[in-house]
């Protein structure tokens, strides 16, 4: 039985990839992930803002108050060189590459074109096997059209593509009017893979301080269904590799992802919850399931339940919505309703 798969042209020993998270910032963790059978790791993102902000900040504080007052013409010694955060990031790629045999994927997060994109080159030079480009943009300007936003995404992807020769995957959110068209155009702009979908951390409101506060919640298995649906739809229609991210927690999630058409499934929340050994557990369960169900390889099931390969392609479309609504029943436990339950209140 084979768990091997191919993603972005990389030969992988299994379909489980550790996605970008604080865990992959530590070489010891990456080594443990490899030991547990992770096929590859995506390093934490290097943010455009981090690259620009750190530079601005350093410049500001080294300059602030200087050359104003005769007794204190400056307030800091200035070393010969700074290892800026981005430089340290490159060091971590090198360290990770030296520590493990599995592919190490760098990650760059930004929205605009500009000087920061040169870090794609640096990431490649530092030895990354591939680059995941995470485009996270909230179009708040009412004058900005969907077409503007799409053009911006394509420009960034094109710019990165021009700068590197390693494979580039694009991680994006689900909020496009025409996801399929966007996927195809991203492929056209040079993306070798699409990572579906980024989870947007939604801010919360603090009623005591009357402030907007960041709020981080880990994913749940049921979040898998959004990327699952889109991978299933796009599989075979857009010629790129797919990775499913968001909601991959169990061996069942992995199997579903593969059957929908993903080359790999990416996992973070489950590892944060259960620890790195959870990767091994999931892979063992995948293998057990395959054995029980007489699958020889994961390649055999790749895209087997994509829209093109299921008996009822409409299940992935609007018809599915109708079906769900019709099947709605009130929650027998008295909670919020769930499909398939009884509509009748409990006596």
């Amino acid at each position, binding site marked *: 039985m084979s768990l091997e798969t191919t993603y972005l042209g990389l030969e992988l020993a299994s379909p489980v990839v550790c996605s970008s998270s604080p865990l992959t910032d530590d070489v010891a963790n990456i080594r443990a992930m490899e030991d547990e059978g992770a096929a590859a790791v995506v390093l934490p993102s290097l943010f455009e803002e981090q*690259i*620009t902000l*750190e*530079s*601005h*900040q*350093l*410049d500001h*504080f*080294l*300059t*602030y*108050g*200087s*050359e*104003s*007052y*005769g*007794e*204190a*013409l*400056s*307030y*800091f*010694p*200035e*070393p*010969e*060189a*700074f*290892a*800026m*955060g981005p430089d*340290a990031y490159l060091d971590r790629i090198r360290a990770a590459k030296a520590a493990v045999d599995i592919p190490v994927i760098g990650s760059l997060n930004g929205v605009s074109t*500009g*000087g*920061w994109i*040169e870090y794609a080159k640096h990431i490649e030079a530092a030895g990354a096997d591939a680059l995941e480009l995470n485009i996270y943009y909230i179009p708040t300007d009412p004058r900005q059209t969907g077409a503007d936003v799409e053009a911006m995404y394509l420009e960034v992807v094109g710019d990165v593509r021009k700068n590197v020769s390693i494979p580039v995957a694009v991680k994006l959110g689900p909020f496009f009017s025409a996801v399929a068209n966007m996927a195809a155009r991203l492929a056209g702009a040079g993306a070798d893979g699409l990572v579906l979908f980024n989870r947007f951390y939604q801010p919360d409101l603090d009623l005591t301080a*009357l*402030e907007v506060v960041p709020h981080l919640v880990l994913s749940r298995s049921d979040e898998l269904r959004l990327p699952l649906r889109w991978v299933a739809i796009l599989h075979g229609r857009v010629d790129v590799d797919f990775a499913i991210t968001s909601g991959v927690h169990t061996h069942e999630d992995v199997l579903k992802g593969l059957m929908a058409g993903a080359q790999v499934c990416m996992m973070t929340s489950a590892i944060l919850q259960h620890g790195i050994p959870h990767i091994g557990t999931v892979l063992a369960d995948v293998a057990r399931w395959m054995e029980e169900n007489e699958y020889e390889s994961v390649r055999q099931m790749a895209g087997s339940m994509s829209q093109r390969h299921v008996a009822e392609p409409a299940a992935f479309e609007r018809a599915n919505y109708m079906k769900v609504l019709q099947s709605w029943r009130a929650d027998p436990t008295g909670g919020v309703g769930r499909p398939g339950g009884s509509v009748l209140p409990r006596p």
Partner: protein
Amino acid sequence: MPRSRVTIDANEAAAYVAHRTNEVIAIYPITPASPMGEWADQWSSQGETNIWGTVPSIVEMQSEGGAAGAVHGSLQAGSLTTTFTASQGLLLMIPNMYKIAGELTSTVFHIAARSVAAQALSIFGDHSDVMAARATGWGMLFSASPQEVMDLALIAQAATLESRIPFLHVFDGFRTSHEIQKIEKLGEEDIRALIDSTAVASFRARSLTPERPVIRGTAQNPDVFFQARESVNPYYRAAPEIVQGVMDRFAQQVGREYRLFEFTGAPDAERILVLMGSGTEAAEETVGHLVERGEKVGVVKVRLFRPFSAEHLLRALPATTRSIAVLDRTKEPGSAGEPLYQDVLTAVNEGMGEGFAPFGTQPRVVGGRYGLSSKEFTPAMVKGVLDGLEGPAPRNHFTVGIIDDVTHTSIDYDPSFDVESPHVTRAVFWGLGSDGTVGANKNTIKIIGESTDLYAQGYFVYDSKKAGARTISHLRFGPRPIRSPYLIQKAGFIGVHQFGFLERYDTLGVADHGATVLLNSPFAAGEVWDHIPRSVQEQIVEKELKLYVIDAYAVARNARLGGRINTIMQTGFFALSGVLPREEAVEKIKEAIRKTYGKRGSVVVTMNEAAVDAALDHLHEVDVPAAATGSIPLPLVVPEAAPEFVRTVTAPMIAGRGDELPVSLLPDDGTYPVGTTRWEKRNLALEVPVWEPDICIQCGKCVVVCPHSVIRAKVCPEEAFQEAPGTFKRADARWRNLPEEKYTLQVAVEDCTGCTLCVEVCPAKDKSQVGRKALNMAPQAPLRVQGRAEWEYFLDLPHAKRGSDNGENGVGALAFTTAKDVQLLDPLFEFSGACAGCGETAYLSLLTRLFGERLLVANATGCSSIYGGNLPTTPWTCNDEGRGPAWSNSLFEDNAEFGLGMRLALDKQRVFAEELLRRLPDGEARALAKGILAADQSTEGAIRAQRRRVEQLKSLLDGGEDLEARDLLGVADALVDKSLWIVGGDGWAYDIGYGGLDHVLASGKNVNVLVLDTEVYSNTGGQASKATGLGAVAKFAAGGKPTPKKDLGMLVMGYGYVYVAQVAMGANDTQTIKAFLEAEAYDGPSLIIAYSPCIAHGIDMAKGLDQQDRAVKSGYWPLYRYDPRAPADRSPLHLDSKAPAMPLADYLYNENRYRMLKQSRPEAAAAFLQESERLVQDRWTRYERLAQAPEPHEGEAP
């Protein structure tokens, strides 16, 4: 091999040679010598080696006295050792200097010579410090320019090794130490060639070692001490020839010739000037000019002042000499004459008497003083002095450069005389510190100095205020070396980088006829003319100036550079001045940008490059009309309502015309009136806070945290507002015991620095729009006129006092223990020149609100003495009764002792007054005396009541003939309790003044100490102190401070009878107020350590309060009060903050000083963080244990 040419200042030049030729360097910061230590520390931390291939060890000491001791020890143990200092620092080294010279030990101290504090402190240059050291037996070599500094630093080092006499290598503070010049850098081989390895070996052979033990430093008796003292004479006799020998070797190696005394001028000169230091450059330049015109004049430049060689001096003077004027850059009140004058006089007399003088007739020798505290010394003055030698009876003991209308010492000169070469480009730039003008000009000098054959010189005049500081840059470029150590008198280019300067300063006064003026203007070329004050228009027309404008702020904004307009204005200068072809200049500017900003990241480089390109497109010439047409008058410097002293003395200083003040107008003992900052309306802020009465909860936090006391609150009955301006805001007062009153909050819009701390701290939010608070920033300009009227009205409203004359508590019987109440008290410390958002000044403001009317302050030298006491205007002020803080600064090192002395005087006067009261004869006064003697003074009301009694007593005694009654009149004020506070920074409390602080606290006397802890020497530019945290990057700790912060509070708690509190106003203002009240009330010594954010931390100062909160929450800065009055069943230590709950990294890495190490040495930073976390936890555990109530003894009831 050709030597490289570098464009550097003299501090760097001296430090370069010192670092290359020493093994141990002991350092301590003092202006203007600090940069030498900073360079040495930085080079060593970068692994730069000396000529023997080893990295010199750098040690920062706790004082200059400590540095001299460490140097002495290191020298004795056989390492080549040096230090750098100036002024009071040198004075602290004197005891060791006697020893070092007495033991014939080779070393060089590099001195950026600076005034010694007398009637006032001055950071500027003259020779009074080195003259105070001239009896120590040290050689003294004087350098006059940055090139000479590099050369003579080496010559001094070689000479000390060969002569065994230690040397002071002296150059003028600021004028030379901070002047940037293009100079030739000595190569490694030059240094090696000059340093005699045999002399080095001999030096080592004399060291103390158990391998060949000797004893040095014995005590000698009357039988031998004298003879032994005379035993060194041969070394001093030989030294001048040794120095000349080294100079000759230097000339062979390098090509530049130096003499001990160097004559320049007409070979048959009759009138001679003798002087040393940077003034010699101006003298030589002038003499050259006069000789060309046939005048028989000359100048002798003194390089070797000690050992003084009369023979060499007389050999340098021409036989034709008829009169000599000796100029000293120092003053020795009461002497027969200043030192160089006396030496020259002696030499001439001895030469004539003993037959080694070259002259037939004895020349007349006169002495004069010039240039004290960096007072300008110009060719006009040189000519004035030489002219004075013309007559048969030249004036002696004269001064030049001032108007002395008291003792009439000053000589006249024609200020319009100048000798500036037409081949030199001269440019003057008026900028703000924050706009980067000086930095850009330094780059300009480097660009021209290093990429053309032109010589370059740059000198920068800084402000005495820190917030909104003005800078003036003076740049010269020319085909020949530039020896003009004085400010530019006529400039061909003027850059005015702030439009508002046109009405505040005479920016175009130095403009030469036909000069080019580049003005940063918000108005376009077509409309700017009408916005220029009329008198400035007149100058432009009369001098036929070519006027250009650029809206540099707009260009900077577009390039996302904020207020940094430096590269934009620099581009404008190059484009208009034509010093370099335009395209080449642009490329060079960009190269400089890449060099300066490159390591800070490509983003910053890109932005600045874009600004350069945009600048050229925004540069426009103004079509200047044929005549002035404007109607805008220049505003008054101070209002007409200002006191006479402010109008006649302070105002010219504010306007930059202080040089014109004659001696008679200046106080002769350094005593100045208080409360002068209120007359200097600086209008610094672009935005100021605006109050929303409907949202405000009247908590007072904004008032209490305001670093500049520009937000104030009062409660008054509605009737008080009857005449108020229509825009004047108020609201119902929210005090339970003030039900009928109105509350008003006002902002001094013209004094605000726009730091935004008030808005940050404001907790009240608009319920419909939470981004809006009770205070919001709004543009200042439209609010200026209205704000001025409101402020003036507000000041006249009655204000709250903590006590009333009848002994009751003040308004509404408020307790004044929280910010809400304290906000109503008048601050008697206002509008200081501290940095915007300064973390120190709010504590001082609080101090004056609580105790101001009976406060005495002993203030250590440092930031607080500068923003507190630097002229022209000072912030300590008085209340409507004329009472307020009496403030003084003695020194840096002695502040605790200084304050203790004040306490002793107050106590003694009190005792004496009480004795006299008891001896009063029967009568009205005696009856009053009983009440005074029995008075309780435990509340402010009681103190005010006592003051009223004392006032009555004084009026009864006044005019009496009785001697004891007159004595009592003189000391009666001491019967009213005074609040004595000793204030200073951590450099003082933790380092240089710690011995004295410890002693004063241990004395048990009723003194209160406030340590404004910024964790660095803030005033001198952020050098590490023992208060600096582990792993923080600071000057002198470029690699991160390797040891943890000293726990001063814990050390002092050990005494058991000292009240100790650690506070952070931004974390808990109530605890801060409580600590101040408790410390003051404690009849014994008290210490408050106050966390004070500083720009040297590298934080956004607007978030300074938030950062204090982080310091507390992370456990870095626990809040506590240790009160010896605690009952036996309670621990004296009370913890006012909770156990560490925030990761320490969230506090530390919010500051550039910690983040920088993460960026430069990440492994070290990680290790420091880990260790710091452990230390924070350990300390908290220890404090918690101490704060637990003592266990009851066995048998005691619980």
